[in-house]
Each structure stands twice: as structure tokens, then as C-alpha cells.
């Protein structure tokens, strides 16, 4: 039951390492990352998209229990809400080191530009953070009342246990009903940050938002599955076998939808045969083929594996499957960036004087003796320091989950 406690120390270490390296980055500037002018978003934004994904999935699971009466999943609603809350906090926090001037972040409130998809995302991510917090809070309220502890619950002191339980149940339901559309929105809007940009052929497609949702359901459900597995342990796996079976099926089904969207996207890019579309595909299938292989093969394997009953009956297999899936989804998020920045958006030439496969060079943004100042494309690789800073959301999510699971009961007895 308390296996997750062991993860508290690693979580703390990750958090400290990332905070220290972030401090160094604040002092030196983003020059310490692998990003430059031709490749202006990298690991941080990919990690943001990754965490938004698993965050959306969490509340989709707990809301479905209420909305679609998925009784089997009921024991896991607390875990799902917690996983959603921890993930959305993680997503929000990794944006901070990506900002060149995090000290001016208040400008988002003082001078919001409502035409910017980034502002839309700020709004929905904030709303989602509040909703997931409420969802966890409301579900824990009855326990806190009974045990006489908890926080922000002074107002329940004068109420009876029954009253608290009925208030919690009523409001949990309401939060779940509002939460489901918001869960879908955070992913839609995060996808829109990318999909609105006609300057980046790899993103400029209406299939991006639905595909983000499919990946979110798959990876978010997988995280709920992993946390639940670690809490129940092998001993009690049998008691919740039905719930685990359903979660694995949801993951596999969402992956199938995801692969359908991927296939449509690739087909439409390829069929017309325009030079810019083909240049993007060449990046995907040649230059970045190894990473793309990880993105496709691992989730494809997990999908097939989870569709077979054998995998779903063994806790060890489920755990491994989920970790393979996370690796694949993370590769998927990284692959958002590479073909988008290194295609030829700057095949600038005049009508009638086109030249093929030529990239109008961009000033890199830093000077180093002997290295070129202008580049047609930038071979982005995150630096070690960037990877260290990127541990921030992982550390935070781990800490939130272990602290909460260690302090309160997230697996209520079946009634």
C-alpha cells in the first residue's frame, strides 16, 4: 500500500537538481541550452506537451466514472484525480524555465492578448489546476472529517459526517461534469498553439487537436494505471483486476485512434507531393527516423500487447507496458519539434525564380570563433544542463504524488 513512499527521496533529489541548474540558467541566459534562433523551442516545450497530455487523461478517467457509470473504475477515481493534479502542476512549472524573462510573468495578467493561443492555454491550464485540486480535495473531505485532519476544511467542523459526505459526493459530481470538457480543452488548446501556425507545415493540420486528445487519453490512463498498481501492489491486484483490465483497454483503444490520425496525417502530407510537404516527410523518415521509430514502434507494441488478455492479467506486464508507452509518447512530443523547425519554412525566393531545397539562412544568435553565424537548419540536441533543468516537472509530480499518497487514503475500500 505504501510502496510509493520510496519514491519520495528521488523526487526530492530531482527537484533540487533541477532548481539548482535552473538558477544557473537564470544567471547565464538560455544560451546554456541547445536552442538557438533557428530552433527556438525544444525539450522544455516538448515536456510541457507531455505533461499536459497525461494530465488531461487523469480527469477524463475520473469523470467518465460519473458520467458514463463505469462502476469498475470507481475505486480509482481518487488516484486519477491526483495524477491529473500532479501532472498539470508539472506541466505548468516547466513553462517557467523556458521563459527568457520569467520575472515578467505577471504581464500575462496585466496585458493579455486574447488572440494568442498561449493566453487561451494559460486560462484553461489555470482552470484545470483549480478543478483537479477541487476534485482531489472533495474526495478526501469525508476521510478528513472522520479522522479529524486535513487542510482548508475548517468549514466542515460544524457539519455531521453524513452532511460532509453528501456535500462531497454532490460537488465531486459537479466538478467531474465540468472537468471533462476542460480536460479535453486543455489538450485541444495546447495543440492549437502549434496547429495555428501556417509557417510550420508539420503542425499546420486540423488533425493535431484530436490526435493530442487520443494521446492524452492513452498516456493519462496509463499513468493512473501505474499509480494504482504501485498502491495496490501485486497482493491486491486480483481484487481490482476488473478495473485494471478496463484501464488497459482504454489505453489500447486510444492508441488505435491515435495511429489512425497519424496515418491520415502522413498520407495527406505525402499524397499531393508539394516540395515543402515532402521535405517534412524526408526529415521524419530519414534524418529523424530513429526517434520516429521509437515513437511508432513502442506505442504500437503496447497497443497490441494491451489488446491481448495475457498482458492485462499480469501487474508486471502492465507496468512495463506503461513505461514503454511513456517513452514512446515522450519521443512523440520531441518529434513535434524536429521536423517543424528543420523543414524549409524559409525557402524564400521570388515567384518564377524558385530554388529547391534551399533554406534562407538565419542568424544563430550566438558567436563562437570558427563556427558559422548563419544556419539553414539547426541540429538541436538538448544540453546536459537543459536535461537537468527538465527534471523539474518530474521531481514535482513525484513529490506531490508520494506526499499525498503517503498522507491520505487514495484507495478507499469497496462498499
Amino acid at each position, binding site marked *: 500500500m505504501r510502496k510509493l513512499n520510496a519514491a519520495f527521496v528521488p523526487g526530492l533529489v530531482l527537484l533540487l537538481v533541477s532548481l539548482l541548474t535552473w538558477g544557473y540558467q537564470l544567471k547565464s541566459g538560455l544560451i546554456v541550452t541547445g536552442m538557438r534562433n533557428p530552433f527556438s523551442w525544444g525539450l522544455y516545450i516538448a515536456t510541457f506537451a507531455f505533461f499536459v497530455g497525461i494530465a488531461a487523461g487523469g480527469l477524463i478517467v475520473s469523470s467518465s466514472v460519473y458520467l458514463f457509470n463505469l462502476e469498475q473504475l470507481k475505486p480509482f477515481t481518487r488516484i486519477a484525480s491526483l495524477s491529473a493534479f500532479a501532472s498539470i502542476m508539472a506541466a505548468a512549472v516547466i513553462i517557467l524555465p523556458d*521563459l527568457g524573462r520569467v520575472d515578467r510573468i505577471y504581464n500575462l495578467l496585466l*496585458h493579455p*492578448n486574447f488572440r494568442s493561443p498561449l493566453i487561451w492555454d494559460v486560462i484553461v491550464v489555470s482552470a484545470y489546476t483549480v478543478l483537479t485540486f477541487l476534485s482531489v480535495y472533495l474526495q478526501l473531505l469525508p476521510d478528513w472529517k472522520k479522522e479529524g485532519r486535513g487542510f482548508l476544511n475548517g468549514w466542515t467542523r460544524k457539519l455531521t459526517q453524513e452532511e460532509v459526505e453528501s456535500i462531497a459526493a454532490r460537488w465531486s459530481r459537479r466538478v467531474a461534469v465540468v472537468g471533462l470538457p476542460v480536460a479535453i480543452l486543455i489538450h485541444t488548446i495546447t495543440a492549437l498553439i502549434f496547429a495555428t501556425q501556417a509557417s510550420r507545415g508539420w503542425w499546420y493540420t486540423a488533425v493535431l487537436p484530436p490526435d493530442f486528445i487520443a494521446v492524452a487519453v492513452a498516456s493519462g490512463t496509463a499513468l493512473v494505471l501505474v499509480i494504482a498498481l504501485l498502491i495496490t501492489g501485486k497482493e491486491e491486484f486480483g481484487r481490482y483486476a476488473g478495473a485494471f483490465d478496463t484501464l488497459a483497454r482504454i489505453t489500447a483503444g486510444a492508441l488505435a485512434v491515435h495511429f489512425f490520425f497519424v496515418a491520415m496525417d502522413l498520407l495527406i502530407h505525402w499524397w499531393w507531393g508539394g516540395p515543402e510537404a515532402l521535405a517534412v516527410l524526408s526529415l521524419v523518415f530519414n534524418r529523424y527516423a530513429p526517434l520516429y521509430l521509437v515513437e511508432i514502434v513502442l506505442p504500437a507494441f503496447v497497443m497490441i500487447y494491451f489488446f491481448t488478455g495475457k498482458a492485462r492479467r499480469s501487474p508486471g506486464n502492465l507496468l512495463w507496458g506503461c513505461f514503454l508507452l511513456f517513452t514512446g509518447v515522450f519521443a512523440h512530443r520531441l518529434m513535434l519539434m524536429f521536423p517543424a523547425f528543420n523543414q524549409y519554412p524559409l525557402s*524564400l525566393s521570388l*515567384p*518564377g525564380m524558385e530554388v529547391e531545397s534551399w533554406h534562407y539562412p538565419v542568424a544563430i544568435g550566438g*558567436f563562437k570563433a570558427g563556427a558559422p553565424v548563419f544556419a539553414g537548419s539547426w541540429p538541436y540536441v538538448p544540453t546536459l544542463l537543459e536535461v537537468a533543468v527538465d527534471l523539474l516537472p518530474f521531481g514535482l509530480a513525484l513529490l506531490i504524488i508520494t506526499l499525498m499518497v503517503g498522507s491520505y487514503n487514495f484507495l478507499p475500500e469497496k462498499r
Partner: protein
Amino acid sequence: MKLGMVIDLDRCIGCRTCVVACKGHNSQPPGTWWNRVFTPGSKEHQIPLAKDGEAQMYFLPVSCQMCENAPCEKVCPVGATYTDEQGRVLVDYERCIGCRYCMVACPYGVRQFNWEDARKAKEKAGYMPGYDYGYPFEHRDKRGRLVYTPDRPKGVVEKCTFCVQYTDQGDPPICVQACPARARFFGDLDDPRSEVSRLVRQRQALRLKEELGTKPKVFYLPPTGPRK
């Protein structure tokens, strides 16, 4: 008033005088170039490329296209990038939060980020200590927004401003003033009698990436003579 520029590619000799003048006058830190001139299709500038059995070469200067439908302005979450009453797309150095969404959105690759402190960058590049260059004063718009400073803050995005510090005084941008071949024209596109309006109207003026609908205020007169 809608300030715009016309570049006559028949006249451009690819000398990059505008690039260097722009860099100096606008105090651009090492590794930052608001204005670029390249030979399309060629690996190296000023090297002709073989096309249809003949040598071909033309030069294409590119700096901010000053789009009317500017994606950089639309994506900016805090309104740091804005279009002023004279049609110039500017960046408020004091409001920018450094999210770099505008760099993602720009189809022309003209936006540049201050990845490190400009002074430190100059030191690292080996500039003589205390050596400063460029227009030495801060420049603010009518509402007091900082749109030019020789001391670039770390972590903000910058780009060509049509030399806001000069155009506010009625002078043309430095690239126009410096061009030895007189290939650049500058003026009010709203005034039908201005030279730029006349050129756009009477010659075959083209814009880069017209298909994206960004409506740049920088026009190009394509080369008419043989490109040899």
C-alpha cells in the same frame, strides 16, 4: 501613414553594406543580424549556381517584412509585439517575457532572441572592453514603450524596426541610406504619390510568401535582366 519599403533586385549587387550598417547602427550583439543578404540556391553568398546549363545568380535581402497580418503580433501573449500608427511592427523590450512564440510563428526567420547578456556576449566574442557601437540613446514610442536600446536586455526577442529611432525623425532607415546601389526605396504606402507607392503600382512588385496572406509592407522588384 503606412511606412513601406521597395527593394529593386536589378540594382542589388549583394555587397551587404546594408547588413553591416544595420548591425552597427542598431547595436546588434554578436551572432544577431536583423538584416541578411544571400544568394538564393547557392551554398555560399556571391557564388553563382548552375541552372539549365547556365550560371545564374541574384541576391535577396531579407529583414522584417513588416506584415499587415503579422503572425508574430497575433501570437504574442502579452502584446509586447505591436503595430504602431505608422505601420511599423515593433517589440517592447520592457514587456516581452521571452516565450519565443513569435519566432515560431514568423515565416521569414527575422526574429532573434537574446540568449545571453549582450555585454557578456561582446566580451566573449573578443570585443575591446568598453567598445560600444550604434545609436547610443534609448528610444521610446509616444506612449513611452521602449522600442530601442543599445543595451539589449537578456531574454527578450528583437528584430528590425525600420530604424524607428531614425524614421521617427523623418529620416529613412539606415539600410536605405547606406545602399551604394540605391536599390532600396522607403516611404508612405498610403500616399499614392510617394515613390514606393508608384513603384508598387507601376512595376511588377512581389512579396515573399504571398501565399501565407501575411501581407508584408516590404516589396521586391524582381530582376528583369538576364541573371548571369
